[in-house]
């Protein structure tokens, strides 16, 4: 094969017919990552770099006035280099989530929010009633809402109707590492929604991420799956490859499953026939 063919082949397999665009903004990486739970800020930065992520999530919290000023993440993360997506993690009511979103926007980076309204302390599953209410209010105020929801099609449809720019169904509970519990639900949500579907939470290892992307979803957001690995930086690299592999496998279209074997080698031309 000529060298030129090799190059064009590579370009072809890099080509994605449906670029990853949220609210009119395109992103190269379909992997978004959280910045919590790392052993150190240096490790966090190294993991983000290894993941290739452009979007990184951050939380809004009180400044601890008794500790050093180095605690804030902006001392470590260059906001010109990454797209900061603030979350409303820890909020249990629509009004709390709205307050956190407004504070995050006042930081002055963008009007995007990863909206979480949690409904249960043990599972951290979303409260879809509060989530929908907060989505409507924030959309009215000009926010770009990426709504963290459970893997429920009807909730996802309502969030889209309410103006969410992306819907983020969970693979499994936050921090559980259980992988995707309901591929059918995730696939159905992707098939029915027009806005991007980004699976958020529950991915435990690279194969989980790959299988999630093979469902055809637009992206994945994860935190603990990387931060809680024995070697977070290496896992970040693994997740990058897995997300790309899963996306490519989805675009390639898998072979049909069969319950019987089909030989790969010719059944004719055997010796002695």
């Amino acid at each position, binding site marked *: 094969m000529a060298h030129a063919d090799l190059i064009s082949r590579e370009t072809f397999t890099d080509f994605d017919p449906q670029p990853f665009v949220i609210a009119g903004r395109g992103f190269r990486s379909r992997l978004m990552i*959280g*910045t919590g*739970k790392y052993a150190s800020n240096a490790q966090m930065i190294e993991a983000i770099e290894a993941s290739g992520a452009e979007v990184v999530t951050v*939380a*809004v919290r*009180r*400044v601890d*006035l008794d500790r050093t000023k180095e605690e804030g993440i902006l001392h470590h993360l260059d906001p010109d280099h990454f797209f900061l997506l603030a979350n409303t993690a820890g909020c249990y009511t629509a009004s709390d989530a709205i307050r956190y979103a407004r*504070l995050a926007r006042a*930081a002055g980076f963008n009007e995007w929010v990863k909206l979480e309204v949690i409904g249960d302390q043990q599972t951290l599953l979303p409260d879809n009633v509060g989530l929908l209410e907060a989505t409507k209010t924030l959309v009215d105020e000009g926010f770009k809402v990426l709504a963290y929801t459970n893997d429920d099609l009807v909730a996802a449809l309502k969030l889209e109707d309410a103006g969410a720019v992306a819907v983020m169904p969970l693979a499994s509970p936050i921090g559980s590492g259980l992988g995707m519990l309901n591929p059918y639900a995730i696939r159905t949500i992707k098939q029915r929604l027009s806005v991007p579907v980004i699976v958020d939470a529950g991915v435990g290892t690279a194969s989980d991420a790959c299988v999630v992307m093979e469902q055809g979803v637009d992206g994945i957001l994860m935190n603990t799956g990387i931060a809680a690995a024995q070697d977070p930086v290496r896992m970040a690299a693994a997740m990058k490859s897995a997300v790309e592999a899963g996306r490519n496998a989805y675009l390639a279209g898998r072979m049909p499953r069969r319950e019987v074997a089909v030989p790969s080698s010719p059944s004719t031309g055997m010796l002695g026939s």
Partner: protein
Amino acid sequence: MTESGGVVTQAVASEVVITVNGTERRVPSGWTLAELLASLELDARTVVIERNGTILRDRPSFASIELAADDSLEIVHFVGGG
């Protein structure tokens, strides 16, 4: 906290009592928000301040906003999260 260790309930004439992130503090009367931030060694560009429930969007105005008795401030910033 007062020197006796009790919760501050009354300030002397030259001070006001405000609440910052849920804790009462005494600050000199006439202090501006900018002076408070400086005393806390905080860079206004990396924090967001909510005063009595209202977000203060205009950072340059911090230098002219005088703290008043019973002001309740929330000073927040971005931390790691997923």
